[in-house]
């Protein structure tokens, strides 16, 4: 990242925190204005909705333009090399355009430069894929890990240069897929996260790094720990998921041997360790990962230990979770100043309006019941099927 971009990101982080503090009532308007004056914004930014729209339409424009170029150059199957060369040139041009937009044009969080950066990496990866599978004549088994490594390198470079944490996470995921092709893939999936996690944890909070690189470290950490959990998970061991990702199809290992019991223990211990580390260090990503993996481990437990029918387990688990939330909330609120050991149930400096709308959206997406099939219930047509009136079709 350029020093100018680093400074702009740091200033944006300070302004963002000040706005959140203002919403929470910690700062007044005068203090907020003083922070804005002390850390001015020299970037061209767009709000989240315009950012999304500009991102989408840039994707459409560039891909349509590329399609037009391909058609003009007379793309056919035997001229795939022309298209690959075009992808290589387009990828380079898009990378240069991204540099121009983020550098001299000072765009940040603007949507367009995010789309051009993504397309640059995508087109370069496509050109690399053609090079691997056509001139080098690599088969899929041999070519895929090399392509994953190239993709990881491109994404890591984009994350490092332009500061996109998502690319860093994707680069880590591509690296893990490449590692799975190696003979000791599962071992690498376990050893690498264990070796890298402490350093990534430090980097994700290091004030020396630009904010975007801190977030990138956190994204790589999240992917690495998810990979670790997948590698030690008992179902993953039984079904040999890592080896399947690696393109090998080994026989299922024996059930109940020493290694199986090791994976059983690890399936239980990894979430507990993540939760403990998150609680001890007040690290939100670790808490989230710990909660997610704990839920996955509990579902796994249900798979192996049949205590009751699924509907009973679901109902009891839901009730237990609700009870636990209320108990935790009551415990935290009853502490001195509504706080215990640095934890509080109060919302901290968050945009509550946006958060609540997101919660409502998530509730609809995740909890909305399955719709009744209108075309399979003739008996109920009189009660519910009249809706829609004359506009409905004959089958209705």
């Amino acid at each position, binding site marked *: 990242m350029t020093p100018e971009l680093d400074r702009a990101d740091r200033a944006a982080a300070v302004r963002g925190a000040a706005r959140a503090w203002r919403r929470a009532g910690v700062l007044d308007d005068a203090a907020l204005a003083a922070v804005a004056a002390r850390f001015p914004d020299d970037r061209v930014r767009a709000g989240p909705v315009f950012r999304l729209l500009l991102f989408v339409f840039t994707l459409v424009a560039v891909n349509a333009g590329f399609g*037009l170029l391909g058609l003009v150059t007379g793309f056919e199957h035997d001229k795939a090399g022309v298209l690959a060369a075009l992808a290589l040139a387009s990828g380079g041009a898009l990378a240069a355009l991204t540099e121009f937009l983020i550098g001299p044009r000072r765009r940040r969080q603007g949507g367009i430069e995010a789309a051009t950066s993504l397309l640059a990496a995508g087109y370069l990866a496509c050109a690399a894929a053609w090079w691997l599978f056509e001139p080098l004549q690599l088969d899929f088994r041999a070519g895929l890990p090399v392509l994953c490594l190239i993709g990881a390198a491109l994404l890591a470079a984009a994350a490092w240069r332009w500061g996109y944490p998502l690319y860093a996470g994707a680069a880590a995921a591509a690296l893990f897929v490449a590692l799975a092709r190696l003979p000791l893939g599962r071992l690498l999936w376990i050893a690498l996260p264990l070796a890298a996690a402490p350093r990534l944890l430090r980097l994700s909070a290091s004030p020396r790094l630009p904010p975007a690189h801190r977030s990138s470290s956190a994204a790589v950490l999240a992917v690495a720990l998810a990979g670790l959990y997948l590698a030690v998970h008992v179902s993953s061991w039984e079904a040999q998921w890592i080896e399947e990702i690696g393109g090998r199809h080994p026989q299922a290992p024996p059930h109940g041997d020493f290694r199986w019991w090791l994976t059983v223990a690890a399936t239980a211990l990894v979430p507990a360790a993540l939760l403990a580390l998150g609680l001890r260090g007040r690290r939100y990503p670790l808490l989230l990962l710990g909660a997610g993996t704990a839920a996955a481990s509990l579902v796994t437990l249900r798979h192996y230990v049949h205590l009751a029918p699924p509907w009973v387990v679901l109902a009891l688990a839901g009730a237990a979770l609700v009870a636990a939330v209320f108990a935790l909330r009551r415990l935290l609120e009853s502490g001195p100043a509504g706080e215990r050991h640095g934890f509080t149930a109060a919302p901290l400096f968050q945009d509550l309006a946006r958060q609540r709308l997101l919660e*409502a959206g998530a509730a*609809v997406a995740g909890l909305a*019941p399955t719709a*009744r099939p209108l075309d399979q219930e003739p008996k109920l047509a009189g009660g519910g099927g009249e809706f829609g009136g004359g506009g409905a079709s004959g089958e209705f």
Partner: protein
Amino acid sequence: MEVHFTPLGARWPWHLLIVAVLTGIAAFRFDSRVVFSLALSTFAAWRGVAAGRLGAVFWAHTAAVRWNAIACGALFAILGLALARARRKAHFEPVAVHLGCLLVLGGLVSGITEAGGAGLAWSAALLLVGTGVAAGAFRCRRFPLFAFGVLAAYVGLGRLMIEVIGRRDALGCLWFAVTSVLVILGLLAAQRRMKEPA
């Protein structure tokens, strides 16, 4: 409980309406937008629309589902506006209006895949409704609704143009490349007017 014990028998879909009413009452009683969103989505499920899987609505070929999606969406949007106007739980309004718009536009999008004149009619309707939603959202500075409207109008217009362009691929690519750039320029101009906080 309904699935397991089936107390309503063949009339099982009514449990969706009962749950919708109960969760609606709970939402108002406990002032919860999350529960209100569940009440709306359960009501939509009673009408045969899976609000949690709008993608399924887009490609649903059942006219009944489409019309129900549009009707539910319109009802939700009107409900949201009425709540805001009456100043009763006005903070529920975005949930109802956003879900309503998504259902209406999703229902219209599902129609554009139909062959012949019906597909064109649905596309024209999508273009008109999308433009109207975008224009209204632009005036009221409602950013998510603006996005819904712009995307819907572009999809509707694109579908109509595909009908005109036919199998001339180069012309299709040219259309999408040029119009996307024009939309980007329009968005940059609109962004300056609407001033969405970054």
